[in-house]
């Protein structure tokens, strides 16, 4: 006989399925820290935020940077970014590729410093951009070799997206509730950074992600279709940075529950790779897709899928693709048992949360690229890596930021360590970095991390 007591007892037995809180918190922090969200997209995607664990280290790093007397050269532009003298009439400045470090990595990258705390978690909704950032934001140009600030550049509004070509940085800046586009070039020794407004029409749509082609001539950005205060990135614009000429793609109605994630241009300068999450992560539509931006048509889904976000190896928030288009890199964001058809194995062995997996774009064959070892005394899952900051042309080398976490236990405080690693064909070398107060960053040749999308107040 069944009665309510039986039902209550049966429901209580389901508590045994409660996930491990540490694993969940690690995943949440990893997801919000590593990229602007995952499957949700749109406003569900969050501005990169370093956890509060890093604040003391960050402060120490900042002090160290000042003490060591680094040369800081500031390029300041006017409130609406007037074009600087000497810039070509069409606004596009051909620039030489960035210098490289001894390890062959671009010598500089662009970073958005941490937002001032706005409320309990330090997070901010774009519609409530802190007043201090409405009038402008100073970005950092970081030396890859040391992780320290090489120079800074001020932009005349709230920076909602950044990207890099092989020789310049780009930013989408919210001024007067429209996104304006800037190119940031480095000149001279030091170096010095200068921002120039591009002749791309400002866009009043809620902003998603930004990516720029390797030659700096084509700029891609996604915008949202709004659902109240939420939104999904479903529109794509590709604009010429020299003429401002635009092409637009929209999402067909049948895919209206999906959203675009981070984007990258391939080395050919015409193929755009973007992560697409359909109605569900496990849906076949959720995958990294390639779109030929020179082909006819205006459907965002007219390209082809390359690899599903949920596959036999596990579940992935998104993939990073090598510029040659042959290798995909993903970080396992789900411990084994990620859903139907996803046993979470590679080569017959269980893989671990946070593992770095390399896939062949052609065959989908996976290989373990790197797994961060746990701290002594920590139990898995306690380590993870963010999506690569930079990836070489073939995907053989990449720059990674990885974390190790050991939860607090009686008599012992929690420990979190982060490392910046150069991974070269499986061999990891730690770079002499300290935890930096960075909020979002971009390297030449890789996807433009978007800041938390700046959503203007509803009309």
């Amino acid at each position, binding site marked *: 006989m069944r009665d*309510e007591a039986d*039902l209550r007892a049966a*429901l209580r037995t389901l508590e045994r399925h409660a*996930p491990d809180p540490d694993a*969940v*918190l690690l995943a949440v922090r990893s997801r919000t820290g590593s990229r602007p969200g995952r499957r949700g997209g749109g406003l569900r995607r969050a501005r990169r935020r370093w956890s509060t664990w890093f604040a003391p280290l960050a402060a120490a790093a900042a002090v160290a940077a000042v003490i060591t007397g680094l040369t800081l050269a500031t390029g300041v532009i006017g409130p609406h970014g007037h074009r600087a003298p000497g810039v070509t009439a069409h606004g596009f400045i051909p620039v030489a590729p960035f210098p490289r470090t001894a390890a062959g990595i671009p010598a500089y990258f662009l970073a958005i410093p941490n937002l001032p705390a706005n409320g309990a978690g330090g997070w901010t909704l774009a519609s409530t951009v802190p007043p201090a950032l409405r009038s402008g934001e100073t970005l950092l140009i970081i030396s890859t070799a040391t992780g320290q600030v090489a120079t800074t550049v001020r932009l005349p509004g709230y920076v909602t997206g950044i990207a890099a070509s092989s020789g310049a940085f780009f930013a989408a800046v919210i001024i007067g509730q429209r996104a304006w586009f800037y190119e940031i070039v480095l000149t001279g020794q030091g170096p010095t950074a200068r921002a120039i407004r591009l002749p791309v029409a400002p866009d009043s749509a809620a902003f998603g992600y930004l990516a720029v082609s390797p030659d700096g001539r084509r700029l891609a950005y996604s915008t949202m279709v709004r659902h109240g205060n939420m939104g999904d990135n479903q529109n794509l614009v590709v604009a010429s940075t020299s003429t401002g000429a635009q092409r637009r793609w929209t999402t067909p109605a049948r895919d209206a529950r999906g959203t675009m994630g981070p984007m990258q241009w391939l080395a050919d300068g015409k193929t755009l790779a973007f992560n697409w999450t359909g109605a*569900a992560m496990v849906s076949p539509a959720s995958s990294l897709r390639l779109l030929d931006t020179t082909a006819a048509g205006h459907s965002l889904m007219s390209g082809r899928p390359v690899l599903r976000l949920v596959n036999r190896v596990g579940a992935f928030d998104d993939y990073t693709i090598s510029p040659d288009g042959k290798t995909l890199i993903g970080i396992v964001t789900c411990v084994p048992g990620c859903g139907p058809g996803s046993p979470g194995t590679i080569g017959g062995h269980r893989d671990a949360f946070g593992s770095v997996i390399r896939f062949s774009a052609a065959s989908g064959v996976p290989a373990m690229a790197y797994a961060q070892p746990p701290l002594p005394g920590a139990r898995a899952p306690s380590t993870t890596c963010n999506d690569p900051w930079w990836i070489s042309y073939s995907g053989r080398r990449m720059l990674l930021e990885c974390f190790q976490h050991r939860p607090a236990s009686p008599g012992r405080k929690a420990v979190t360590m982060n490392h910046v690693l150069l991974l070269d064909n499986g061999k990891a070398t730690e770079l002499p970095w300290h935890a930096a107060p960075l909020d979002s960053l971009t390297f030449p040749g890789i996807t433009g991390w978007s800041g938390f999308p700046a959503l203007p107040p509803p009309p």
Partner: protein
Amino acid sequence: MTFEEFAAAQMPAVLRLAAVLAGDRATAEDLVQEVLTRAYCRWDRIGGLDRPELYVRKMILNEFLAWRRRSSRHRTRPGPVPEAVSSAPDHACAYSEREALLAELGKLPRRQRAVLVLRYYEDRCDNEIAELLGCAPGTVRGYASRGLAALRVEMAPRPRASLRTELES
């Protein structure tokens, strides 16, 4: 309330709720990660609410309802539960009976399941459930009644106070 304070105080309860709603660990993990990632991103607003834990519970419920709707085609449904062969009761009977009940629970429409979980696991009154699910208390009672009927669970006599609340509402 900071996110860290919320996590320390409410996380276990939120995780258990997700597990009971979802019925398996992987789905529960997915559910909670999805919700907490969104909540984390908007914590400056959520943390300022009077009862952020209630808001997060509502997010969990909404995600559960939406997730199951979106992914029902991909979910593995529980298989049929074999009939008991032996007539002599033993310790295994209670276990198999419970598993059968859970299997039937897993087949219920998502709203019915959510109502039963909120009523019999979280011990929430119908008015609270109605608020969490965004529907009328009468609708909640309808879901509960149909859910219980499908599970063939006999209801105990309702306490007088509950009856009065029901009549007044």
